[in-house]
């Protein structure tokens, strides 16, 4: 089944055609209809809990605690909840959102900056202690911040960066490095080495080979790493709870708990904020989703 170079060249255009067109010429209409139907069902399954959340965020407080529950609120949808939640007495929500954004964006950038060269290098070259290095990296994934909060708090105190964005950027970056490195490693390792060699013959240095030749080929891996890091920084709770003590600095995950009172909880706000918190991740995803399809095939065609 191994394919020779000429065969490869001959096959390429054929496949391109098929990917671009899914109309009546490519796939039968019935099959396409089936796919759309399955797609709709899948989307519904994954969205249902969040639709419940959305409806909950549009209820009044008495309505949300009704026994038995109603699927839709009788006294109208309270869109006003989405306006009033920004100025509740419990937490300064606009600040919380900004904090979360800054922490997540910079943690993600830091991870990419640090993990990409290491992933490329470990996939391409051998050096003493490489296996130990990769294992060490994965060990950090096993240590969740949840069981380490006491030590993290103490360390940030000593460094005098407690209650700062920097502390949470460093923590989120460090604990999410491993996945980013491992997934990019596996993608770099999947690129035929001849590509590098050809570029090196042209006199390109290793860094240049990485950025101009390899990087465009591993976009799917990078996209996955970005989403992974961003999402877990976005939702990190345990370390933020003890390290960020000022209400304005706390991320959304911690701010949410402020609505949970001793005897009563403003569920409509908890749900509303959770919905709002999903949006930036979806925007990020929409921006980079095309890269996911691009990837290797795009590179191979060039």
């Amino acid at each position, binding site marked *: 089944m191994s394919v020779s170079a000429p065969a490869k060249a001959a096959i390429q255009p054929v496949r391109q055609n098929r990917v671009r067109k899914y109309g009546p010429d490519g796939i039968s209409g019935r099959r396409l209809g089936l796919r759309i139907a399955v797609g709709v069902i899948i989307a519904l399954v994954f969205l249902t809990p969040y639709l419940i959340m959305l409806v909950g965020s549009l209820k009044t407080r008495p309505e949300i605690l009704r026994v038995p529950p109603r699927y839709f609120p009788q006294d109208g949808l309270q869109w006003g909840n989405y306006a009033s939640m920004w100025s509740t007495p419990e937490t300064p929500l606009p600040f919380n959102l900004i904090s979360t954004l800054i922490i997540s964006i910079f943690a993600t950038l830091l991870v990419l900056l640090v993990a990409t060269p290491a992933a490329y290098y470990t996939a391409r070259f051998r050096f003493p202690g490489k296996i130990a290095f990769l294992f060490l990296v994965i060990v950090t994934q096993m240590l969740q911040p949840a069981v380490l909060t006491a030590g993290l708090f103490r360390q940030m105190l000593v460094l005098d960066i407690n209650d700062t964005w920097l502390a949470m950027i460093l923590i989120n970056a460090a604990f999410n490095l491993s996945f980013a490195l491992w997934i990019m490693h596996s993608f770099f390792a999947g690129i035929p080495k001849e590509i590098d060699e050809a570029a090196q013959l042209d006199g390109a240095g290793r860094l240049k080979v990485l950025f101009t030749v390899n990087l465009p080929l591993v976009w799917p891996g990078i996209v996955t790493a970005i*989403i992974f890091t961003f999402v877990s920084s976005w939702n990190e709770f345990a370390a933020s709870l003890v390290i960020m003590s000022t209400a304005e600095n706390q991320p959304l995950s911690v701010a949410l708990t402020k609505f949970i009172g001793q005897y009563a909880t403003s569920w409509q706000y908890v749900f509303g904020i959770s919905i709002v918190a999903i949006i930036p991740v979806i925007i990020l995803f929409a921006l980079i989703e095309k890269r996911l399809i691009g990837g290797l095939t795009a590179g191979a065609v060039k």
Partner: protein
Amino acid sequence: MSTLTPPVIRERKRGGGPQNRDSLWAALPWVGPVLLLIFGVVLFPAAYMIYSSTRRISQAGTNVEGVGFENFATVFADPNLPRVLLNTFVWVIVVVSVTVVLSLLLANFLNKPFPGRTLVRMAVIVPWAASVVMTTTVFYYGLDRDYGIMNSFLVDIGLLDSTYGFTKNVATALGAAIVVGIFVSIPFTTYTLLAGLQAVPSDALEAAKMDGAGPVRTYFSVVLPQLRGALAVAVLINVINVFNNLPILRIMTGSIPGYSADTLMTYIFKVLQFDRRLDIASALSVVNFAVVILIVAVYVKVVKPMKET
């Protein structure tokens, strides 16, 4: 897992050959920043956890004295430990294996072209984007006997005669937790596999087609082997994350008295929250950490996810 490595792949030359062997010094600029970040941020708290596990720490939080391995003796003599370990393994194995199977199917489907595919892909990413705590909370309240919308839906469509307290009994609460665990793990796994599918060379697919292989055979002999790298990493990260997951189980099984529904993580949480034993909780965390390392070491040894030749 060894079936995932047929000879087809082996023939492709990739990765570093012996000629690419560098010295440690040449490697440092590339891997140094990673080491710096890890040693800078992770090492101290990890060491601190191990240190705490050998101390006696008062209820208030004061570090009283060193007690050697006494806390570990307490942990291993704990009559709840076997049940907790059993629950942990059931939880991890069921969640990860079902997640992987469903994600393989889903990734394969989302890789096929059809109108609206991007929208479906975005829908699938939502559980990943949402906070796990909130997703679990929705399930928890949805399944509540009195307020639960999901519960009353099951009654309305005739599956239940009257609402049922899913989160109040060990078996159903664990079951519900497992469903939520799978639900929130699928998006990440699917995306990793979907990314991996992009790396399947079209020439190999066409060659298989020309050889007259059906779609199933093509999938197992061409696609799956190519997914090996992404799959290996996805399973690894899933095992670790599911093993260490606290919020899902804490919420779904949290109102059940006693320890019969606990996993290692929720047990650590209870020791911390209710018994206020920071020292014992640290010892348990060390045990937890050792168990994960052991599992991962075995996994890495068997599956060799970092292998490239």
